[in-house]
């Protein structure tokens, strides 16, 4: 479950878009380096956010399938010797350009937030 306490006072539709958008951004960022399977993605999000952000099975997979449907990621079953097969996700070219766009948007957003919220202390 992702907790976005800081979004509480944002207008509801903006909040929904941001929520969805930032969740997608998290997954796309994690896939930027190399293909990963679902469990690994969920685990990395939890670890890198020090447990602040956490996805469970019921929210992570619908998100992955949605990205797949949009053509941003591509899931493939990969079999390795001595292991059971796993489904690996990797970025499609469209996913890559989307990630670039989202990253800069998010950076701008964070910068703007910081300017406003951090202004009092400057």
């Amino acid at each position, binding site marked *: 479950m992702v907790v976005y306490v800081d979004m509480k006072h944002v207008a509801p539709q903006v909040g929904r878009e941001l929520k969805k958008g930032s969740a997608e951004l998290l997954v796309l960022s994690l896939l930027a380096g190399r293909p990963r399977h679902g469990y690994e993605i969920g685990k990395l999000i939890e670890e890198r956010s020090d447990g602040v952000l956490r996805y469970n099975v*019921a929210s992570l997979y619908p998100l992955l399938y949605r990205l797949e449907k949009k053509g941003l990621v591509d899931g493939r079953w990969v079999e390795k010797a001595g292991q059971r097969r796993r489904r690996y996700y990797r970025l499609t070219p469209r996913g890559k350009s989307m990630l670039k766009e989202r990253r800069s948007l998010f950076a701008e957003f964070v910068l703007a937030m910081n300017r406003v919220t951090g202004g009092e202390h400057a």
Partner: protein
Amino acid sequence: MPEWKDEVRASLVGLELEPAREAEIVEELAQHLDERFGDLVTRGVAPEEARRTLVGELRGGGLAAQLARVTPRARPAIAPGEERRGVLLSGVLGDLKYAARQLRLNPGFAAVAILSLALGTGANTAIFQILDAVRLRALPVAKPQELAGVKIAGKASRTGWFSGRNPDLTNAVWEALRDRQQAFSQIAAWGTDRLDLSKGGEARYADTLFVSGSFFETLDVRPVLGRLLTPADDRRGCGSAGVVLSDAFFRRELGGDASILGRTVSLEGHPFEVIGVTPPAFFGVEVGRRFDVALPICADALIYVETRRSTSPSAWWLGSIGRLAPGWTAERASAHLAAISPGIFQDTLPPRYDAVDAKGYLAFRLGATPAASGVSSLRRRYESPLVLLMAIAGLVLLIACANLANLMLARASARQKEMAVRLALGASRGRLVRQLMAESLLVACLGAACGTALAQALSRLLVAFLSTQRAPLFVDLAAGGRVLGFTIALAFATCILFGLTPAIQAARIAPGEALKANARGISGGRGRFGVRRVLVVSQVALSLVLLLDAGFRRENIVVAEIDLTRAKLPAERRAFAKTELLDRIRAIPGVSSAAIVAVVPVSGNGWNETLRLPSSDTKGEVANFNRVSPGYFETMGTPFLGGRDFDGRDVPGGPKVAIVTQTFVRKFLKDGNPIGKTFAQAGEAGKPDLVYEVVGIVKDAKYTDLREEFTPIVFLPEAQDTELAPDLRIVVRSELPPAGVIASMKRTLSDASPAAVLVFSKLETTIKEALLRERLMATLSGFFGVLAALLAMVGLYGVISYMVARRRNEIGVRIALGAERRDIVKLVMSEAARLLGIGLVAGTVLALAAATTARALLYGLTPGDPGTVAGAVFVLAAVAALASFLPARRAAGFDPVRALRDE
């Protein structure tokens, strides 16, 4: 370790995912949960506690709802043969999609099937479209159902002068009818004519309506420009009358210039002021014709100074149409009209009539008939030919259906295994029939769609064909709901005709049999083949019926009509002027002979008189009359059987002479040598009879119409004509092409008499136009015949090829046992010959029956004419032989070893 797969599966219940996709999701999520469970346990969480957490996450996260948004639901599985009871047409869309796929896989089959159906439905729709336009559609006026036509009821034998396309009433009868009737709230009359727009030189005609003042009011037509004619415009002796133009004429001739109002148009050299224009949709009351100019009946006296129809008591030239008064029906109006008829006819009795004619005249009764769809000579003339054509087109469609049924059967046997598999998997036969019918329906609909497009072109072509220079045809061919309905009905009917039997046949197979190795027998089963044989036999028979058609004849004569009215020649100068014109034409290089004639043969015009014969006490035999100058018979190529041609001896004051035809002699001058005998023509009331001496006998010739039997004809010398009209007709025979002769004549005549109005026509064209119906029938039935024969041959080829393929084993065995190639060809050809033979016999019988029915419509066709039948049979047999020889040769070329080993 918990069984995660079951847990995941349980949380997906109700999603109806595609099975393969669901399996993947279950596998992926179960893995995830597995690993997470392992992690938690490793971190020291109690297994039971870890399980509870994970199950909570799985169930509480709204997985199903979120997945529903991103994963497609499974489509209802296509299970061939599955029946969903409850919903009647469920799965039809699937059937159609499958059918479309099947057609795409067999483009050759699809093309042949759709094309032959398109030709069949196209022909039928085109003819129906014309029938609809001519026969079924209401006039484009307000409340057409209130309209009724008035004419003399029953078969009345009238004498007098007939003019125009609806010569129902004389002007006197019309005026009496108008003044005395009470059945109609409004009643109108009209007469048709062609009037010359030119101011001299070669004539240019406008289709003209002479209308009563009430005409437009009765039909409730409103002007788009100016005003229309009213009763005030139509008074006897009206001075300069105003005229109303049709919208089409207004646009065509005057470029739609609104300032035309108040200006004049020239009709027969007289100026008429334009007062208004009718709406575009209004064409008059006669379906198939369009008027250009309408002028009041009283204007007849202005135009025809010497021969006025409006004042002649025996000139039949008007039709009448009225709007029934509220509460009146056509029947009640008829009864009313019959009651007032005696008074009307008593008061309008033409004084020229003798006792016999007068008695008939006084017995006439007027009657009313519903006229919501207007009146039409076109309808009378073309209705039965169109129905006959429709029947022919229907036959072609039947043949096309038979062909398709054959193709379908062939396909069915090719798909035998598919059907067997489906049956074995549990499909019901009904379901298979439905699937196959969906294919037929698709083909039928595509065929009908192409056919409808084709029909638009075909019907316009037909109308163009029926249109002649003198009588341009105008039919509104906009395809309405009725035509659309007809085509749709046709599509469904054809679908059932060609699809049902093959579909039932295909579904009737025994799956076990069909699935066995190759279902190979020594010779393919006969039972199934029977249907195809019957189909081919009927195709051959039907196409034979259509191959029999009619011929027509041609001549090479030019007719010049010369109107000298505008030269204003005094009567005593006319004879001289006519002779001079004739001499000038005879002097034109290339003209071999020329003569003056009063009634041009087969032009549709006529002149008859009552005879008084010494040999009989008859109350009056009637003969056709004509007046010709010397050289007429030579020009027309009519041989003399005795006596002499007219010559210089036949002068105005001399003894009255006549040349008669052989039928005249046979009927009226039976005994002894007819030359020198006399007969008399009944004089007008109060005048003595005219006695003529026969000086020559000629071979029979057609008079008004090529379709009529030969009638007795009396030819009188032009030189003895005492009432010379200011116009004349000259027939010219030449060795040069008609176009050149016409050009020379035009120059010569214009030089001789600049005021003359000239019309030229080729007799060949006149005859052609007179035989339009026959030509139309001949051309179309010929076309349909060839089409049908082609279709039949495709069918025969298909059946024989199929037979050869089925009997491959048998033929292989025969060859292996020592049969010669010749024997194999003979074997196959004899099968084809048998089918052809039965088809030809059945076809001949059918054709003879059909020809007897069609005889009334087809000039020159002798039913059972052995030559025609033999010709058609020969053509059909020759093509059939070719169609079956190809597969026969293929069979003879089988390698016996391969034929036996294959499959």
